[in-house]
């Protein structure tokens, strides 16, 4: 196809816009860093409360060099991964079952809603008593907190499958497995992936809450240890590590979404 000069110009303009949009979050971060440095330089707030970026960076390299950061990060990551696997797994399967058998919803919803609306921080100690101070109790806190978005989005996703398409599958004599693979799963996928994004960010909260309540290792423990030693830079480093983990996990799901939902982007453009 021939592209005219005007169309090219238009496309270049759109590309520039897109580039600026991608750049803007980085600019925000840069601005915050500058502000932070300025506050530290002028000693507006004591160093012990807001350590300057340089101190935080020093704490970061130290923690990296002596392996403290890596060790605790690995613990937390492991707890999160297993927690996600169980929580999301059970959530999706149960969500599918509830979408198919509405009676189940009546039976289970009191328990599910109770679990969801009671603050996890409040009953985390119970989970520690039951599952011990090792990683398994954090796997449970994570699983409990990531379970709900997975469940709800699975229910909504499967229920949103269009009845005429169900008729089509029936008229083609598609069995339950083919109906699931060719209709229900792809139709529900956008909603399920949206839920997975929420679950991914919640996973960090689940693991860290568990670690706060009682644990020997993990980023939550590192925060408590650093605070008790008045090592504020290390506290900041640990918190930022959690942020990076949460963002990466979110990004990972977003990437999967981007790959799988090509058709939605094409339809929107």
């Amino acid at each position, binding site marked *: 196809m021939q592209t005219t000069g005007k169309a090219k110009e238009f496309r270049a303009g759109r590309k520039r816009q897109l580039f600026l949009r991608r750049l803007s979050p980085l600019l925000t971060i840069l601005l915050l860093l500058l502000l932070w440095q300025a506050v530290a330089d002028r000693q507006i707030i004591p160093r012990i409360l807001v350590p300057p970026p340089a101190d935080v960076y020093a704490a970061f390299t130290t923690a990296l060099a002596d392996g403290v950061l890596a060790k605790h990060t690995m613990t937390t990551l492991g707890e999160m991964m297993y927690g996600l696997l169980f929580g999301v797994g059970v959530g999706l399967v149960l969500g599918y079952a509830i979408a198919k058998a509405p009676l189940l919803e009546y039976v289970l919803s009191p328990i599910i809603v109770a679990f969801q609306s009671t603050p996890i921080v409040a009953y985390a100690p119970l989970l520690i008593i039951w599952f011990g101070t090792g990683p398994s109790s954090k796997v449970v806190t994570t699983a409990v907190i990531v379970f709900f978005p997975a469940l709800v989005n699975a229910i909504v996703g499967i229920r949103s499958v*269009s009845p*005429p*398409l169900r*008729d*089509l*599958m*029936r*008229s*083609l*004599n*598609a069995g339950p497995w*083919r109906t699931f693979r*060719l*209709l229900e799963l*792809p*139709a529900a*996928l956008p909603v399920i992936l949206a839920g997975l994004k929420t679950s991914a960010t919640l996973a960090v909260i689940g693991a860290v809450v568990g670690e706060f309540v009682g644990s020997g290792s993990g980023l939550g423990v590192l925060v408590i240890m650093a605070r008790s030693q008045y090592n504020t830079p290390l506290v900041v480093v640990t918190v930022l590590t959690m942020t990076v983990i949460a963002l990466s996990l979110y990004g990972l799901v977003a990437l999967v979404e981007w790959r799988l*939902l090509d*058709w*939605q982007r*094409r*339809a929107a453009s």
Partner: protein
Amino acid sequence: MRFSVENIEVNFPAPAGDLLPALGPISFEVADDQFVCLLGPSGCGKSTLIRVLAGLLPPSAGAAYCDGELIQHPLAGAAIMFQDTNLMPWRTVLDNIALPLEIAGMSRPERYRAVRKLLPQLNLENFELAYPAELSGGMAQRVSLGRVIVQQPRVWLLDEPFAALDALTREALSLELLRLRARSLQTIILVTHDINEAVLLADRVIVMSRRPGRLVADIPIDLPRPRLAEMIYQHEFLQLAKQIRGCIEDQRA
């Protein structure tokens, strides 16, 4: 395939708890290879009747038979075209048309070969990788039609397939339907509320009453085939259309 409809009634549960009669009782027969149009006002139960014939909905009373056998399950050898295009938005044109073959267990190269053979007849050869949202209404309906043809069905059950299209596109697609059918004969039952469409396409028009739809008239259309767009201006065509309109107006009075 021939159909026999015997005193079929369909009632739907109404909000108040009682039953809302949606269709019938209605009885008629459809012979092998016949093209029958079900014509009636909207809400008269035409689509419900198609669902019964397809084996998707059990009637509340009466029975429908296909080749002498009671229809209880979705019919093998019957293909349905739904009111809206009813395509899967996440599948390309190629994969949408290939869906019935995939469900039948055909391998990917085999089913793509079968679909690609069909695309030129449907004027879709440059769109096999497009998604439904990227197609015009007429093109999407042709994809939907392709999904019917690829099954090589012995019965086509068409539920107002072109209702959402503008008049010109609709006429063009109706005639395309006749052309695509001509190669090997099948029984076709088409639901419509358009008198001209019914007369232009059918061997026989069954006029239905308002809800609950009953049989008002059963009119044979003995216009010569192949049918052409110009025929709608011919005297015989106009006579038939007028007769059908008369049947519809009689029951309004």
